[in-house]
């Protein structure tokens, strides 16, 4: 989904011609041996951005890539902050942010998952890269601080962070300092020395001042470059230099006040007027300035200011957008307020109108509010809210909710619904029921001063309101209410309002799905797909197709699921413009899963290779975790259990449900791998943590977890009869539930497990029952060509199938399954270990051989103590030891150290 970004924020400022060379800073240690973090921390006007731009130029000349973000207050919102950061990185190192950007497109993107993907991609790309965050103080705050710290502490060694700020950031500076990973440049270092002051005033500005003049200016400005620049401007062309310097040095007024007054006092009236009137703008362009000043010389004026170095900073390479130097603008505004207090509102109003016409609602609203013109602000919000919500900019709209008094919103039903939408999608439900009720009253008895800017929007409201009520019911766990409100929404939707129908249908589908009503869910999602296709939202059609496919797989209808994915791919190919659509990768993952069920490993692998070729950026938000799960399952078939476990751990970190019920939790899949690895204690830990027991009440959303628990219980060695009986009882109950719910896919797995359990039982009557149960499973599975669910169970299943072939030699299906066993050979173990150590575990092992303490090892590897302990536990388990010294000895024997 295209989100408008202000591209000037990503522009690396040019290094201005005629700078004083400052080798002590530009070529100093901060540049020549940059560390994890370079911090430039000083008040405004100290030349921070100029220094950063010089570094960026030098870094690029040395072959490093540079990603630059000029932050603004809007980046206090994490979604906005990370979108700019990841976009900048992706621009500097193409591809590096693809996966993260895909996730950032979802509602309430999980930042940890975004950063995990980003860090993976950064590590995989060995070239040097600097991320520069200019004006970090504008974005700094509790909403981003922890995540920036996380990113910083996990950056691979070839990636450096450079921050400029007016206030020290909330980052672990002391820790980085202690580790020698922080270079700091502070005000004291940025101040111009006497020599630099002389080089600037006499060299760059060409003023020809005496040594004592220079000393006087240096003393008065204390090397503050903003003041020196203003002083140079005041001195240029002045007759009585000595008199000026004497007056200036002997005055104790605020330097910038004094000097700006000097500078603007010497400008012609039209320039002075331009400067004051445009000082209300955060960014300046010719047309915008024209709108505000009601003149037509904006562009020429900006070029003139640029040439005479009057404190405008170009924001792009084409010199279209500029801004004033912050300090200069601050002082200009105080002059504006004293000289023309009555006009300030008008100026803001003109800026607001210009931005509104230019379809930039955010600055338009800011200026309208600054003008105190609430109706104008409300107009802009009303016209843009729905569009912003569709672009998943709900945080922007949410921010406006608090800016308008309730009585202004009450008269504007279209705006009120937009606000409700933003509250819903930012998870702030508290006031929504009250707002919906009030809106209903207003619509039933419209007041005389009702405002509706676009009449046709009014017809959309009844459907939209019921959709929000359905969503509220879903959030409150009221499935019946969800379906009822969704039905109302569909019947009240305005003709042609396909998106409202689709949203309501999808909500109804979600409620049915979570309740295990798969057929109703499928019907609702199909309706959603029809609406989305009509509205032309093909990527969302693909998103719903993931669910349609999942539903069919659970129902044991592999061919139908396959058809769903293929149909979605066909539709996507029709709508492709410049290459594949987002979501095509997800369909391929689905096809791979079906091939895997049929034990067609080659096809499953080929689909995943296509997915890898498309890249993570072409996936929907769930894609990062889904492809990892699919890949893990393939690794499992190859016998690479620890590889599968590692991928599943990653999948858990990048998990995004995107509102879907989590019916196959990744943690449960990982528990199943633990069972295969023989690590039953850890699998049981998982079950305990999830509070699973064999006598739980059953619910569809926990079915996969309950089956996982049954697997664990059945595998317990020397399990007492009670544990086995519990597992049997649980399986019997889940079987009934799955049968009643029409979940044939699940039923096949249950029957296979029951057959295995009977096969392993010592009771004499059971072998026959085992074969009968397996026969039931095969009857359900044969038509769809299921194979992995049997082959994956290993030798006991082969035994059982062999027995079945002997009992019923004419049935070809079990014979084919038996043949499939022969085709699978587990990967040859490396290092004499059945389950080889992962790269990370080898890192841990090496440090275990040192004399570092546990916490020191964790900090060396930039992981939490808990993660380190998990790695250690894995190492011990794989080496078959239970303490550190034994692990080191064993590892030496095996040649691992």
């Amino acid at each position, binding site marked *: 989904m295209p989100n408008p970004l202000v591209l000037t924020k990503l522009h690396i400022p040019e290094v201005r011609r005629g700078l004083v060379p400052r080798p002590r800073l530009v070529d100093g240690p901060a540049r020549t041996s940059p560390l994890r973090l370079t911090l430039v921390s*000083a008040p405004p*006007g100290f030349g921070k951005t100029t220094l950063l731009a010089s570094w960026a130029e030098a870094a690029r000349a040395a072959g490093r890539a540079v990603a630059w973000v000029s932050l603004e207050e809007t980046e206090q919102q994490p979604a906005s902050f990370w979108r700019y950061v990841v976009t900048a990185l992706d621009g500097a190192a193409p591809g590096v942010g693809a996966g993260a950007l895909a996730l950032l497109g979802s509602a309430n993107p999980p930042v940890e998952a975004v950063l995990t993907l980003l860090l993976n991609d950064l590590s995989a790309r060995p070239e040097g890269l600097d991320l520069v965050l200019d004006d970090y103080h504008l974005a700094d705050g509790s909403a981003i601080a922890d995540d920036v710290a996380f990113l910083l502490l996990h950056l691979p060694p070839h990636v450096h962070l450079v921050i400029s700020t007016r*206030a020290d950031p909330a980052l672990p500076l002391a820790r980085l300092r202690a580790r020698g990973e922080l270079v700091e440049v*502070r005000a004291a270092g940025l101040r111009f020395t006497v020599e630099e002051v002389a080089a600037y005033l006499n060299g760059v500005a060409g003023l020809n001042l005496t040594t004592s003049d220079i000393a006087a200016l240096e003393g008065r400005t204390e090397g503050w470059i903003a003041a020196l620049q203003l002083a140079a401007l005041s001195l240029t062309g002045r007759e009585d230099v000595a008199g000026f310097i004497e007056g200036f040095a002997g005055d*104790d007024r605020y330097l*910038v*006040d004094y000097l700006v007054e000097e500078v603007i006092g010497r400008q012609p009236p039209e320039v002075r007027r331009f400067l004051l009137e445009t000082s209300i703008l955060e960014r300046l362009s010719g047309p915008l300035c024209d709108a505000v000043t009601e003149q037509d010389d904006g562009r020429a004026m900006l070029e003139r200011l640029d040439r005479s170095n009057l404190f405008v900073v170009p924001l792009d390479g084409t010199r279209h957008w500029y801004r004033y130097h912050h300090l200069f603008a601050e002082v200009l505004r*105080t002059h504006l307020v004293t000289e023309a207090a009555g006009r300030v509102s008008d100026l803001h109003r003109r800026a607001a109108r210009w931005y509104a016409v230019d379809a930039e609602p955010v600055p338009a609203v800011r200026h309208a509010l600054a003008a105190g013109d609430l109706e104008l602000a409300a107009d802009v919000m009303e016209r843009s809210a729905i569009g912003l919500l569709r672009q998943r900019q709900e945080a922007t709209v949410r921010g406006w909710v608090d800016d308008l008094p309730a009585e202004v919103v009450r008269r504007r039903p279209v705006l009120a619904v937009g606000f409700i939408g933003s509250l819903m999608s930012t998870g702030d439900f508290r006031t929504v029921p009250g707002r919906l009720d009030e809106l209903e009253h207003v619509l039933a008895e419209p007041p005389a001063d009702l405002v509706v800017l676009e009449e046709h929007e009014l017809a959309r409201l009844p459907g939209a309101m019921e959709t929000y009520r359905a969503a509220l019911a879903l959030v409150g766990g009221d499935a019946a209410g969800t379906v009822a409100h969704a039905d109302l929404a569909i019947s009240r939707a305005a003709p042609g309002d396909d998106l409202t129908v689709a949203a309501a249908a999808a909500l109804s589908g979600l409620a049915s799905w979570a309740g295990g009503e798969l057929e109703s869910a499928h019907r609702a999602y199909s309706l959603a797909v029809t609406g989305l296709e009509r509205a032309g939202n093909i990527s969302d059609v693909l998103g719903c197709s993931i669910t349609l496919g999942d539903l069919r797989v659970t129902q044991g209808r592999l061919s139908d699921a396959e058809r769903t994915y293929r149909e979605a791919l066909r539709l996507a190919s029709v709508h492709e413009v410049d290459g594949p659509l987002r979501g095509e990768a997800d369909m391929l993952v689905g096809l791979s899963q079906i091939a895997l069920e049929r034990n067609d490993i080659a096809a499953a692998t080929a689909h995943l290779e296509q997915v890898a070729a498309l890249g993570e950026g072409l996936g929907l938000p769930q894609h990062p975790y889904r492809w990892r799960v699919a890949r893990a399952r393939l690794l499992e078939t190859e016998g690479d259990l620890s590889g599968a476990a590692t991928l599943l751990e990653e999948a858990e970190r990048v998990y995004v449900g995107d509102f879907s019920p989590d019916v196959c939790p990744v943690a449960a899949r990982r528990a199943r791998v633990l069972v295969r690895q023989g690590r039953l204690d850890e699998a049981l830990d998982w079950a305990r943590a999830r509070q699973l027991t064999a006598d739980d009440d059953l619910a569809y959303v926990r079915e996969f977890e309950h089956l996982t628990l049954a697997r664990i219980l059945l595998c317990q060695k020397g399990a007492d009869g009670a544990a086995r009986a519990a597992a049997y009882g649980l399986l019997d109950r889940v079987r009934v539930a799955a049968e009643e719910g029409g979940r044939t896919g699940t039923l096949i797995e249950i029957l296979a497990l029951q057959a295995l359990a009977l096969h392993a039982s010592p009771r004499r009557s059971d072998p026959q029952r085992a074969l009968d149960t397996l026969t039931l499973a095969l009857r359900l599975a044969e038509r769809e060509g299921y194979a992995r669910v049997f082959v994956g169970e290993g030798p006991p299943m082969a035994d059982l199938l062999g027995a079945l072939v002997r009992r019923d030699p004419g049935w070809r299906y079990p014979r084919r399954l038996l043949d499939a066993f022969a085709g699978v050979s587990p990967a040859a173990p490396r290092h004499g270990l059945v389950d080889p150590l992962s790269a990370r575990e080898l890192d841990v092992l090496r440090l275990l051989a040192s004399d570092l303490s546990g916490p020191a090892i964790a900090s060396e590897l930039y992981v939490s103590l808990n993660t380190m302990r998990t790695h250690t536990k894995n190492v011990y388990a794989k080496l078959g030891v239970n303490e550190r010294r034994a692990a080191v000895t064993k590892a030496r024997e095996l040649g691992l150290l």
Partner: protein
Amino acid sequence: MNTAAPDPDGSGWYEIRLQGRLDPRWEATFEGMTLTTGHGITRLVGPVVDQAALHGLLLRLRDIGLPLVSVCQVETAAEPCPPHHPDTTPRGA
């Protein structure tokens, strides 16, 4: 330093001193604060509704670039902080 009874939200009158003389024009941008100057010091005194407002004001001052000398809570504008001693203030940063 603190002569006023503490308010849980930190609301009350505050006096903020800055090094350097700010033009009286600035008073209009610090709503409700009175700006006086003398001896190379700017003194802003006025009511602050809570801690958030106080921090917002301090950020505005940071963005002007004048060194901050002191912040203290006072009873009213009439009762200033203890006198400031310029000789104990370090030069710049």
